């Protein structure tokens, strides 16, 4: 393998894009702005699956999402040359849908909510239907995948390296991955 190829997965421009911009909001108070909030876990999950062989050139990554995790996956999969099939519902906004399609991902929109569990259940049913078919699939499962919080160790290191010790972390909780992963890593310095 020559030197250029050895640059491998890291020299793809995604690593820098996944990092947060740190903005000072007060004397000892900083905000972190992510250009694509879920790019960090999407990249970590896909690259780890590639490294362990759960994804190869014949694999289609399948995930149910109507938000930024889908965009993160679409960016990573486009860069890695991996097929991506996302299952969403009518709540997906048009600009995001267009970006996903521009990135080459296949998008299935469920049009009817399930009798029980609404659109979320309908999306999960559709995902099951897809992966039950012929072919090779990988489902990142962002809500259950420990690599989601694990990926935020990179962000925690960025915080400490840029700002020093952090006494309080404030953040929103969706999957819980960002806040749990960041706080778990920060706490290793003061357990």
């Amino acid at each position: 393998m020559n030197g250029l190829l050895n640059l491998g997965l890291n020299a793809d421009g995604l690593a820098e894009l996944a990092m947060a911009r740190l903005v000072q909001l007060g004397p000892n108070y900083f905000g972190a702005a992510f250009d694509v909030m879920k790019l960090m876990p999407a990249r970590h999950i896909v690259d780890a699956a590639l490294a362990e062989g759960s994804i190869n050139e014949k694999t289609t990554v399948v995930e149910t999402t109507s938000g930024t995790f889908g965009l993160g996956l679409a960016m990573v999969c486009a860069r890695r040359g991996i097929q991506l099939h996302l299952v969403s519902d009518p709540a997906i906004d048009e600009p995001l849908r267009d970006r996903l399609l521009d990135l080459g991902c296949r998008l299935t929109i469920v049009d009817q909510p399930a009798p029980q569990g609404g659109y979320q259940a309908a999306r999960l049913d559709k995902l099951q239907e897809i992966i039950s078919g012929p072919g090779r699939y990988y489902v990142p499962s962002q809500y259950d995948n420990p690599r989601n919080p694990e990926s935020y160790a990179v962000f925690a290191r960025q915080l400490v390296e840029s700002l020093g010790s952090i006494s309080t972390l404030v953040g929103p909780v969706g999957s819980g991955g960002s806040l749990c992963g960041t706080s778990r890593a920060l706490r290793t310095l003061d357990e």
Partner: protein
Amino acid sequence: MFTNPVLFGQRDGRALEWLGEYSPYLRIVGVDTDAAGIGVDTLSQESPPYDEHDLLTFGMILAALRRAYKTSDANLLGLAATASSRVMQRHGENNVVAAMIEHYRDLGAVGVQVSHSGTIAGFIFDRLVTPEERYEVAGSYLARLAGAPTRAFDYGGVGHP
């Protein structure tokens, strides 16, 4: 040897990273935690079976060290050293170090340092803000705890790694 602090791979015997030029000004009050110690042959020891939590901690320690040596931050360097001491404790409890970690803040220290493959440990003080009498109190405590004489030395200071 090196004129600036480096991340040193002791088993390979080489510097892995230059950490920065602004060492905090510290005083270390240390002791040999093995009173009858005859030293340790590092290379004859197996590397501990570090788990994912240890590796996560090492990454954070390195981030903290980079920041501490860039900004001369004694407190952050103390946190990094103490986190490293805790990793060591997970792979072989040393009663003296356990007590040091429990009480270092009460004594006015910023952290606890240990040599991972040896038996030397010490309290780390911020030399710029710590009253002189604190060093004596810590030294007496440590001598009683370890049953061995203590040693104190200064380290770092901006422009004086």
